[in-house]
């Protein structure tokens, strides 16, 4: 109770409220515009949180995350293009409702179920984080190493393209984190006798480069070739909240989607899109009335309720491994992890012992952010949709300014700007050759923990590697790693077989 009162004092300031309002608004905008992502908004915001009070900075990031997750549905419903991958499942019925002239009710339903999904997952998150932290506090370096390795294997395994491509990106991320001074022995690595390189590759600089620069390069490239992407023509809309009876009708479905979204969000590497599609498919399959079932995909409100509840429930789920174990579930939570570390809050079991008031203020910030996002979307939707009319290269100019200023401001280092540009080029190149960039970031986030815990465990065991298999927890995580990889390889082999069969049939 004492911690909660302290947290209320921390969160109830003018700066925190402004930060939540700005973060929510920026998140909604970046979430709503196809091509921009809330991960990009988070990466751009992060450097500016350096000089803020920890709670103000973290609140800004959390509000951006929540605003972004909710904002994705706006473009999905109004123009049939999801603003974020998590809103892709909303397109079918959301856009069909717009075509029928029911855009207002679709938007209103999306807003309210998103808020309900977010609130419910917050409650589950609070219970789970506390429970897992109490269990995880007993982990030694070997267990933490195995746990982080498991997180890494799922992240790469579940990356959107394939296991091996995800692994290449993930290993590259781990490699980048070994550049600079070795934290344990203080020996320089890959510095080429450059003193500035001793600091290594800054995670935030890399994130800005990977998430924002490829987008700028793409829109400027199209403009220079006079192949501009068109801006979207959107009619004036209002948000109309659904009736109580409609919410009552879908209450059970919402509960199930909250459970689904929260549990999928808690698995590192899965996230919003998977949860939303599973929820959509569940809603359709669980519909008993054949006439209503037939309506899914043609403008059924259940097709908006299910994915929007589930993808917002992911936010609470994704915070569970982040806060209790220090493992980010997706790029957005990886950036939030970076923000927490910058402000001296080290997520993991000790966070509750060392910084309990800050943890409670995180919970409160999420709660307030959902309320602010709800107010914005209900009252200011007609102004928000105007941003969809702005040409992408004009937005690109604003992003370019934020990118350069942000990466320069981190350490007032010219080298950081160069590293950011280089990472941006890597991101652009990876996009062109269809390699995922998310595992690079996650490799960088987890890299230092993997190395430090490995080396601490090896020092404790005097070089005996059996320490990694000496406890039930380690063995459990090891089995999960093997299982994840085996499932991916099996899936790949089935794909190969299927392709061969198709080829043979084509030859016949």
């Amino acid at each position, binding site marked *: 109770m004492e911690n909660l009162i302290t947290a209320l004092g921390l969160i109830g300031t003018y700066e925190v409220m402004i930060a939540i309002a700005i973060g929510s608004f920026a998140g909604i905008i970046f979430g709503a515009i196809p091509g921009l992502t809330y991960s990009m908004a988070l990466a751009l915001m992060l450097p500016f949180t350096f000089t803020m009070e920890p709670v103000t900075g973290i609140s800004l990031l959390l509000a951006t995350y929540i605003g972004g997750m909710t904002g994705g549905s706006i473009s999905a419903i109004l123009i049939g293009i999801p603003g974020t991958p998590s809103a892709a499942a909303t397109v079918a019925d959301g856009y069909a409702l717009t075509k029928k002239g029911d855009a207002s009710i679709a938007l209103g339903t999306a807003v309210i179920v998103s808020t309900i999904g977010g609130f419910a997952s917050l409650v589950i998150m609070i219970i789970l984080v506390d429970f897992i932290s109490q269990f995880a506090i007993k982990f030694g370096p070997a267990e933490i190493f195995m746990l982080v390795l498991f997180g890494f294997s799922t992240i790469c395994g579940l990356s959107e393209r394939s296991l091996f491509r995800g692994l290449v990106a993930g290993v590259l991320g781990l490699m980048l984190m*070994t550049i600079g001074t070795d934290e344990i022995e203080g020996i320089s690595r890959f510095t080429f006798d450059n003193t500035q390189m001793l600091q290594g590759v800054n995670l935030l600089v890399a994130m800005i480069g990977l998430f924002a620069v490829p987008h700028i390069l793409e829109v400027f490239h199209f403009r220079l*070739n006079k192949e501009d992407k068109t801006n979207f023509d959107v009619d004036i809309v209002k948000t109309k909240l659904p009736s109580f009876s409609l919410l009552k009708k879908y209450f059970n479905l919402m509960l199930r989607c909250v459970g689904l979204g929260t549990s999928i969000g808690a698995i590192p590497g899965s996230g919003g899109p998977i949860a939303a599609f599973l929820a959509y498919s569940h809603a359709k399959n669980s519909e008993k009335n054949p006439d209503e079932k037939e309506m899914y995909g043609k403008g059924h409100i259940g097709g908006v309720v299910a994915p929007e509840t589930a993808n917002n429930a992911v936010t609470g789920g994704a915070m569970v491994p982040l806060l209790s174990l220090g493992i980010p579930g997706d790029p957005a939570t990886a950036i939030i992890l970076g923000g927490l570390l910058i402000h001296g809050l080290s997520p993991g079991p000790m966070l509750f012992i060392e910084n309990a008031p800050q943890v409670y203020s995180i919970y409160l910030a999420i709660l307030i952010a959902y309320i602010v996002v709800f107010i914005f979307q209900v009252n200011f939707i007609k102004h928000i949709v105007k941003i969809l009319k702005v040409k992408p290269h004009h937005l690109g100019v604003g992003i370019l300014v934020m990118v*350069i200023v942000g990466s320069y401001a981190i350490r007032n280092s010219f080298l950081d700007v160069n590293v950011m540009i280089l990472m941006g080029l890597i991101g652009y190149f990876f996009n062109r050759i269809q390699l995922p960039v998310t595992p690079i970031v996650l490799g960088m986030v987890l890299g230092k923990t993997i190395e430090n815990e490995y080396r601490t465990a090896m020092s404790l065991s005097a070089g005996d590697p059996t320490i990694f298999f000496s406890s039930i927890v380690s063995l459990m995580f090891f089995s999960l790693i093997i299982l994840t990889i085996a499932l991916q390889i099996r899936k790949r082999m089935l794909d190969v077989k299927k392709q061969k069969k198709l080829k043979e049939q084509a030859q016949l």
Partner: protein
Amino acid sequence: MRESKFYLYLGLGVLAFSLIWLVLVFLQIEGDLGSFANTPRTIPFFLGLCMSILGIVFLYQYKVGYVPKNQAEPLQKNEFRNIFFCIVVFVSYSYLLRYFGFLISTPIIVFFITRFLLNEKSWKLNFLFPVTITGMIYFIFIILLKSSLPRGELF
């Protein structure tokens, strides 16, 4: 003739990168691999090996004739030139920031981008847009959020 050479190029690229990395592990990090496999070289060396294995896996996939679902997109018209222009803008802006700070460099570079790079003719976009963008960022981060923006050596 294989249907796709994507995995051949990807495999060779990954393998070449990993070999360079492994050489650098021995040239750029002091010490050895250590009897306890616990030195500053251990993890970078292991990562280099992992990358090599991944390169070999891609080459194997090419050998068995696996056609990837997602392949590299073909090079577009003027792509190198356009990307080069963008990089020049990035670097120029960071140099300007270094000497003139945020408030002076930002309107200058935004004007340059809108007028000459994006070829916008409207005076609103050429003059009002740079001032608005600079003012907005200054207002949000300095006045509202009490954060900081880069200061230059001269201003």
